[in-house]
């Protein structure tokens, strides 16, 4: 888990600098935002010429799931006082996944803390390394770093495509974006795609959610 996150951090750092952010801005994102998908979305939209509003909105929409994670972790972590702030900041995909897969409460708490702290340290150190490397490389297109961005997003999307519902929603998001790019201002297609995906998820019929779907891709 640590190594995977570390390498992921290097690519975030390099891509962020390639998209026009400074090394400092890149590192502040990893320190404060600390949520991979949101960070990639923010730098992708800013680098692509989208407005700050569109970039912030897309990053924030991707962060909503962290609230759901917190809700699942309340009975385990029961954070009090200043610890609430630390626990909240460390509530991400990885720490939640490790915590909820443990069988007892002490193991869950241990899993959360170990994973959260290890990923936080690794993510920030490798972001810095990636940002410095990206800065030294120069023209991002020469090294295909712009192609690395869409590859990063599909790699983030891939593990979510485990049943019909997310696959259908991903297709809706992609088609809506393709249709809207030439028609509406930069940065907005991603938000309309998110709204369309939310509508599909909201109205997705219960009878289509069978456990057997889990087995197929």
């Amino acid at each position: 888990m640590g190594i995977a996150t570390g390498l992921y951090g290097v690519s975030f750092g390099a891509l962020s600098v390639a998209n026009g952010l400074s090394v400092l801005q890149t590192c502040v994102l990893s320190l404060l935002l600390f949520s991979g998908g949101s960070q990639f979305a923010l730098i992708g939209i800013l680098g692509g010429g989208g407005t700050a509003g569109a970039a912030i909105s897309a990053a924030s929409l991707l962060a909503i799931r962290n609230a759901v994670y917190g809700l699942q972790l309340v009975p385990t972590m029961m954070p009090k006082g200043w610890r609430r702030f630390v626990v909240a900041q460390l509530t991400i995909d990885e720490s939640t996944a490790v915590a909820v897969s443990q069988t007892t409460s002490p193991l869950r708490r241990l899993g959360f803390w170990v994973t959260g702290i290890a990923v936080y340290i690794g993510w920030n150190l490798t972001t810095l390394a990636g940002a410095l490397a990206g800065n030294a490389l120069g023209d991002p297109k020469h090294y295909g770093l712009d192609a690395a961005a869409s590859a990063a997003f599909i790699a983030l999307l891939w593990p979510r495509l485990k049943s019909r519902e997310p696959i259908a929603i991903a297709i809706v998001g992609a088609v809506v974006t393709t249709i809207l790019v030439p028609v509406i201002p930069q940065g907005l297609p991603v938000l309309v795609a998110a709204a369309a995906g939310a509508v599909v998820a909201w109205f997705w019929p219960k009878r289509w959610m069978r456990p057997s779907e889990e087995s197929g891709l």
Partner: protein
Amino acid sequence: MITWLSVIAASLIAFAFKFAGYTAPPKWLEHPRIFRVSNMLPAALLASLVVLEGFSSGTHLVLDARAAGLLVAIGALLLRAPFIVVVIVAAVTAAVLRQFLGWR
């Protein structure tokens, strides 16, 4: 300046969501449909970002070396390659096509 504003604002909002999970009354997140929508939202957003980063330039749809990189990335994912390998093979593909075949 705008970039700094985006960095700080996005960070504050993301933290607010993380914090809300521990402090908000659980009722409104326990609603099964809201739960599902927030679980499914990343699929729509990430797919949209794949298209934006792979096939758009400003407000134009374009087909260039990035599309080839994306295809190779999908191949790598089908072979269960780790994240960094997927990203690197996509970048190398685009870089090679530009360098040696003169693709855009």
